[in-house]
């Protein structure tokens, strides 16, 4: 089985890799077909998410036996399957689907992320301390960026936008370029290891 898995990986990956560097019609056609299959398989993987979520929450409801102590799992299952049934059979323009998307999914998504605003305020107060040179550089650059990002920063000192642009383009640009080059090398090394079967963490072993 392990050899079969390795062979499937090689057969799938090698044409896609070769098509990047050589214009051979057969290889290019095979690579493009494999990429289209990748999109289909990505679509199938969302089914897995639904199955897993249903299995875990049905088990939770069964284990607790009393509905009162499993409100959250029950609500999740009702919302999940209601939206799936409406969406699959009636489409996204159905009033129920549209209502849930506009008034539950979208606002909750936004509200969840908006909570980070509160957490960054408490983090700014409790965690951002000038403990050493590194932290001092980080905080000074951060504060300059914060002042330059608001129009009032220029009113306080006309140099803030100029200094912040210099930090962004020169200091940040240099460091990020080094990080991008380094991570690019790392990505290539890891991907080669995946293709030849040395890296198998994605397979659970």
């Amino acid at each position: 089985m392990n050899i079969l898995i390795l062979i499937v990986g090689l057969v799938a990956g090698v044409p896609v890799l070769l098509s990047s560097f050589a214009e051979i019609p057969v290889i290019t056609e095979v690579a493009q077909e494999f990429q289209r299959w990748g999109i289909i398989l990505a679509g199938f993987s969302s089914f897995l998410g639904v199955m897993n979520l249903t299995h875990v929450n049905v088990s939770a409801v069964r284990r607790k036996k009393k509905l009162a102590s499993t409100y959250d799992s029950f609500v999740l299952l009702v919302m999940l399957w209601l939206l799936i049934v409406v969406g699959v059979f009636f489409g996204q323009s159905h009033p129920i689907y549209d209502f849930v998307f506009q008034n539950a999914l979208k606002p909750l998504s936004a509200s969840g992320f908006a909570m980070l605003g509160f957490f960054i305020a408490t983090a700014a107060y409790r965690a951002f301390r000038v403990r050493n040179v590194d932290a001092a550089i980080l905080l000074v650059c951060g504060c300059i960026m914060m002042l330059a990002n608001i129009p009032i920063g220029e009113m306080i000192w006309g140099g803030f936008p100029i200094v912040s642009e210099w930090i962004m383009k020169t200091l940040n640009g240099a460091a990020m370029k080094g990080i991008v080059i380094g991570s690019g090398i790392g990505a290539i090394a890891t991907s080669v290891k995946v293709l030849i079967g040395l890296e198998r963490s994605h397979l659970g072993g």
Partner: protein
Amino acid sequence: MTFMERLQSIKRTTIYGLLIVVLSIPLLFPISIPLQVSSATQAAYDAIEELPPGSIFMLSTDWEASTEAESAPQTEAIVRHVFRNDLRLVIVGLWPQGNFATEQIVEKVASEMNKTYGIDWVNLGYKPGGEVVLASLAANIREVYTRDSKGTPIDDLEICEGLMSAKDVDLVCSVSWGDPGHITWVKMVQTQTQVPVIAAVTAVSVPGCAPYVQSGQLSGVIGGLGGAAEYEKLLGYAGKATAGMGAQTFGHIFILALIILGNIGYLSTRKPQEV
């Protein structure tokens, strides 16, 4: 407890409450804040402005509703610009919620600006797979998108005439919140086809764009709510982004005050290090 020690022990719920008050005041009592347009936003604006009417503009909705506060104003501003200049708007997406939300934004703007679906704009929809989708799209769009989001075959759409691959697109704009997003477009499409790409990103992603702007792989960047407000200024209207800049100003000042307060308390109560 000394004053300095008290300075370090303000309750978090107090901070939360103060933050809500500080941000609400400029929303309830709007203040006019002068805006300067950054070079990155200007470059993105110029990239769209230079396109002749009828050019194909591909908008990739690479965001989720989590970043609606930044991505939605950016999307609306870009779409207004595209429609104003009579470009053909083709929408694709790598994330599900953003594509759905974008269609609603575009429908609103299209009805204001008398633009017709299928002729002036189309939503080809969301496809899962990230870089695999873009690699396929770079070679042949019609193998990836056989229908639009409403189910109409792509061959029947007037706006998609001549659109066979990413090479036929005149400019790509990725409204992005992370990965897959604008960097994926650069790696999978721009590098392969030389199609220019601009990015409208959340403020968090702006520093990460710097190397790609420097190398020319990104032709312009609209960064966060501030970038959206600058874009609105370039277009000559004041939308939700501009309305939020007052609160943004107050919020930044509040965070700076917290940092200073926390550090004053820390530095004054820190025990001297033993030699």
